[in-house]
Each structure stands twice: as C-alpha cells, then as structure tokens.
C-alpha cells in the first residue's frame, strides 16, 4: 500500500464538503480564542489546573466510581456497569423492553455511537429519535457524525434541506429557521410519546452522583420533562471528584467547545423526580461503559481519558480540516480520536486503526488548545512507536524508509558531508522518482529550499564570537 488510508480518503473529498468543514472549524477556533482571551489573563494556568483535576480523578478512578455509584443508588437511581458496548446494548434493551415504550428520545452522546445505538435499537423494532438537530440529520441520512460537537459540520444547508424533503418533512426549503421549526414540530410529538429518554453525561460528580448534561437546544431538558424512564450512558471516565469541580470544568468545556460562557441549559440530575411532581422520570438508570478504558488508566496513555469532548483539538487540526472526521473511520475523529480510537479498540483491534496515529503533522495545535492539557502529540508518538514495535503493516503505508537517515545520524562525518551536498536536492526531480512511497509523500507536500548545515555554521560562528569576546 503506497499511502495512508486517511490520505486516500482525503483525496476523494468534494470541495464543498471541505469548505463546510473549514468554515465550521475556523469559527470554532475563533470563538474559543475570543472568549478565553477576553476572560482570562492566563488561560493556560486554568488548563493545567483542569488537567490535574482530571488526572487525579483517573488515578483514583476505582474510588470515585464506587462513590458515584453509591450516591446515585442512595438517590434511587439504578447503576449498571458494562464491560463492552455489546453488554451496554443488552442492558439498554432490557430497560426499554420493560418500559413498554416504542419511541425513545435520545440526546447527543458519543458513548452511544460506540454502541451504534440508534441503528441497533431500530433493528430491534424500536423507534429511537436523535433529538439534537445535527444528530437528527445524521440519523435521517444514515450517516455518521463527523465532529463530536458539531455532528454535521460536513454538511451545508442545502444538504439538510434535501434530507428533510426526502424524509417527508416538508418541501425543499434551505432557510435554517424553517428547518429548525420543522424539526421542532416533528420532535414534540416524539418527546410526548416516548416513555424512555436517553442522555450521555458531560460529568458525573462522585461526591453527589449528580450527572451534568449541557445543551443549547433544550432537547435533554424536554426529554427529562416528558419521559418516565431516564437512561444515562456514560464512559467510566466521566466521573469527577466533587460538585465544586463542575464550575471549573464546565467553564472550560463550554468556552472551548462553542466559545459561549455557558450553554442555554445545564441539566444537573441526581435521581428520579420528586414523588409529588407531575412530570419527569420516575426511574433513572446510569450505565457506566468501560470498553477498554479501565486498561488505559494507570498506563502512559491515561492522559487521553482526561478528555472532556470539547472538540477544540479537531477544530485546530490541519489534518482534520483537510480530511474530515469520517476519514478517522471510527466514533472519535481528529487528534483525540487518533489516540482514543486505537486504545478503545483493545489489543485485538489495535492493528486495524493504528495508522491513525500518523494523522498528525505534530504541529502541536491540539495540545495548545486542549482545556485539560492533554499532551496529544506525545501520545501520538507513543502510539506510532507501538505500531512499529508490533510491526503493524497498515501504519507503515506510504511512510518512506528511514534507513538512510539512520545511517547518517549514527555517523557524524557522513552527516556533515550529506548536509553539504544536500543542496543538490533543490535541483533533482524528486517527485518523479519511481518509488510509490516517495510519490505519495510528494502528493500533498512540497520540500522547502535546502538549508542544511546552517545549524553547524551558526554554532561555529557563535563559538568564535564568544572566543573573540
């Protein structure tokens, strides 16, 4: 294979899609930066603080998870643990069958994507309805979200209007307000019909068991007003130590995700409704999904589990912007997905997605924007090293041999000679060399003019100047 799977995918993307992604990602970058700069003199200090809170939680996850379970149970919620996505699906099916519902309303949840939940509930004869507008369009199209915060970043209003028309939600009209009103009207009946509503969790406090869910649309809020049963599906990594940490983490999450200071709604759910209230779920289930997370804590890859799913790293990533989230072939796209995807795939699944760690220029933009200070480039480098150690063929595709570099790097004289002669490269027709991997490399890159040997010269000159005083 002469090129990386991600490069091959990127080469086939239509320019309209790339343009939509570029606009969406850039506005995310700009809004985040504007709010953080206006609000904080030293946002980096806050990022480090939040990173430490998250890392502390992961390093004590057994205790905090047990505490969250105990608190939730004491409030009348039922807590379940699922080792794998399939086990979580079984648990969800048991709950929805017992409820007697057919319609299930669902708020956005990336964990549910790990289960391929909407499709599988439909196969089982239920009618799951994605109520987040973006996720609803994804569902209508049988598509996949391509961004963890903006699921349809890859679509423009014309695409959405065509989907609505095709699915019988009115004649073609690409006015975003009309689209939104139609979705509202359609979804209201579903909300009122559904006896079960599902949400993810942005955070779960170990101190109180409180589940925090942020939305702007109010879909989680409507679901939590209209349904009888509430199912929360959350990775075990969503736990945080105390309620007080919510102020710090929500402030950073929301600013990093949308550039807002707070979303329209923050739901804080600790259990079923008060007995004397006429509406709200009588039953609450929290399913903690492991899916290999427990083997990542305690390892040198654990920092990726600090992730609070803000999407800032993908907005900032030049590779994501030129390849789209779908190029990452999994639930989680962008820099965080390139790390998390191969880890959640477990030892058995690693080889099939290990190439994702190559989807980076190592520019470090992801690390610089991450609200929980995850050193994503370091983690990618560790995954690359692992794929080499394990001899993963897929991850080597399109990567030129490093044997020449190895030889030079081990022999200083040869290195000096090569640096001197390197100027020749400016004149050689490298692009035309009959080597597939070199051609693939040049497909998307240009070599700058040769500047080799400059470093040695500068060092020598510095030394001379020092000696001369």
């Amino acid at each position, binding site marked *: 294979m002469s090129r990386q799977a991600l490069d091959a995918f990127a080469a086939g993307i239509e320019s309209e899609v790339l343009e939509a992604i570029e606009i969406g990602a850039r506005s995310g970058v700009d809004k985040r930066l504007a709010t953080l700069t206006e*609000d904080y003199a030293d946002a980096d200090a806050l990022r480090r603080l939040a990173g430490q809170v998250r*890392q502390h939680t992961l*390093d004590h996850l057994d205790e905090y998870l047990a505490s969250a379970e105990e608190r939730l149970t004491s409030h009348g919620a039922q807590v379940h*643990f699922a*080792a794998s996505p399939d086990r979580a699906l079984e648990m969800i099916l048991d709950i929805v069958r017992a409820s007697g519902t057919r319609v299930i309303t669902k708020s956005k949840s990336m964990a549910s994507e790990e289960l391929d939940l909407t499709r599988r509930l439909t196969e089982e004869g239920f009618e799951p309805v994605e109520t987040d507008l973006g996720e609803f369009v994804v569902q209508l199209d049988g598509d996949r979200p391509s961004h963890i915060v903006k699921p349809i970043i890859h679509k423009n209003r014309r695409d959405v209007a065509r989907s609505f028309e095709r699915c019988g939600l009115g004649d073609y009209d690409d006015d975003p*307000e009309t689209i939104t009103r139609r979705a509202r009207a359609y979804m209201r009946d579903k909300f009122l019909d559904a006896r079960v509503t599902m949400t993810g969790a942005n955070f779960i406090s170990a101190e109180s068991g409180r589940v925090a869910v942020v939305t702007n649309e109010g879909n989680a809020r409507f679901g939590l007003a209209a349904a009888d049963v509430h199912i929360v599906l959350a990775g075990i990594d969503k736990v945080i130590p105390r309620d007080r940490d919510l102020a710090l983490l929500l402030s950073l999450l929301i600013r990093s995700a949308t550039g807002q200071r707070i979303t*329209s709604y923050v739901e804080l759910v600790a259990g079923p409704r*008060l007995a004397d209230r*006429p509406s709200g779920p009588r039953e609450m289930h929290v399913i903690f999904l*492991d899916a290999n997370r427990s083997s990542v804590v305690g390892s040198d890859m654990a920092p990726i589990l600090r992730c609070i799913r803000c999407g800032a790293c993908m907005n900032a990533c030049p590779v994501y912007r030129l390849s789209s989230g779908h190029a990452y072939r999994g639930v989680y796209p962008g820099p965080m997905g390139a790390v998390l995807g191969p880890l959640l795939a477990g030892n058995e699944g690693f080889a099939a997605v290990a190439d994702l760690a190559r989807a980076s220029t190592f520019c470090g933009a992801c690390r610089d924007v991450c609200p929980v200070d995850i050193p994503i480039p370091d983690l990618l480098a560790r995954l690359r090293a692992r794929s080499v150690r394990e001899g993963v063929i897929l991850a080597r595709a399109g990567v030129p041999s490093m044997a020449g570099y190895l030889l030079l790097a081990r022999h200083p004289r040869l290195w000096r000679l090569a640096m001197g002669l390197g100027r020749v490269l400016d004149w050689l027709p490298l692009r035309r060399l009959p080597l597939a991997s070199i051609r693939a490399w040049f497909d998307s890159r240009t070599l700058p003019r040769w500047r080799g040997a400059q470093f040695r010269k500068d060092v020598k000159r510095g030394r001379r100047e020092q000696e001369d005083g």
Partner: protein
Amino acid sequence: MADDRESVFASLRASLGRLERRTPYPDYPADAATPPARRGTGPGLFRQRLEAGNTIVIEGADALAGLLRDRGVRTGYCDPDLVPLLATALGPEFELRAGFDRNRADDYEFGITRASAGIVETGTLVLKDQHTSDRLGAVAPWIHVACLEGGRLHETLAQAFDDLGDDPNVVLVSGHSQTADVEGIMIHGVHGPGEQVCLLLESEKETETGP
C-alpha cells in the same frame, strides 16, 4: 440484571496498581474559573447579564400582562401557587391553567413557573425540581416565564454548585433554546422555549458591587 461490575473494578484496580505515584487533588478556589470582569453582584448587574444572554427581564404583573398582550397570547400554564396572585393582577383577558395536560401540549402558549435563584456571573436562572410545579409546563410552551421572588442571587457559578442540596433535578437556564447546527447560523427556539422571560416579583434592595 447481571452486570459486569466485578470485572470492571478488577481491571481498574489492576491498572491502577501499576502506578508508582498518583496525581494529588489540586488545592484551588472553587471560583478559579470566574473571570475577574464577571465578578460582582446585585440585582442591577444580574439584570444586565440576563438581558445580555437573551433573557427578557420584567418587573411586576403589569409588565407581564403587557408582554403577553404584545405577543398576542392568552392561554398558558401557571404554577398553581402563583395563580391566585397572577390571575387577579393579569385579569380575565388571560387564561391561566393550573395543570399541564400533555395531550393538549400545543394549547399552552406560555408557561409560568418559579425559579429558585439566579447566578450573576453568567446571567442564569436556577430551576430546582422542588420549586418547579411541572417540568413540562416550563419547557414545552414557546414562552417560559420564570418568577424569581425575593431575588436570591449567587455571585458565581461556583456558589450555585455549592447550593444544589439534594434536589434531584436542577436546570441552569441561560437564555432561550438555540442551535447553530446548520452552517453555524444561530436560530432560537429549537425544543425549549423560544423566549425566556424572568419576572422579578419583588426586587430586593441588595447592595450592588461591581466587578
């Protein structure tokens, strides 16, 4: 339902057992993320922040009658405890229903419920289950009127999180329902209210402090 609790915890403990050192919990003030420019409290600042965040602020029942008249609406849900107070003040022109019939959800043009507190930092209304007579009445109608009596204010988000108590369902509401999912264009009124109103029933004479 059999679940995988034991295997998940066993795996976690095995992984964590490998750690030589565990990251300590950092010592930090709970309001570390409150921007300096957003500190300060008092009804005036609160009102300003609410309005900046798409919440319409009105004072007194007359103002409410004016707003509802202006929107051309007359039938809505109202917290039964507030009906005696508001029905007289609003007059017979408006029909306040003290129950929310979910089979006729579209009949309710507005919903009036109580808010438990406000957060000055973010211009937020706190709706606790113990003070919300019907969650559906607050979320389903196009206009939601949250009555804040006595002006209970938290200066920061951190203070509000410190005061959650054991309420099973607290919603922080900052403005109307909105989406930017289609080409990033902001549209209001997706599933929740398209207009969020805060009715201040008696403004407390609190001392105003600036940021």
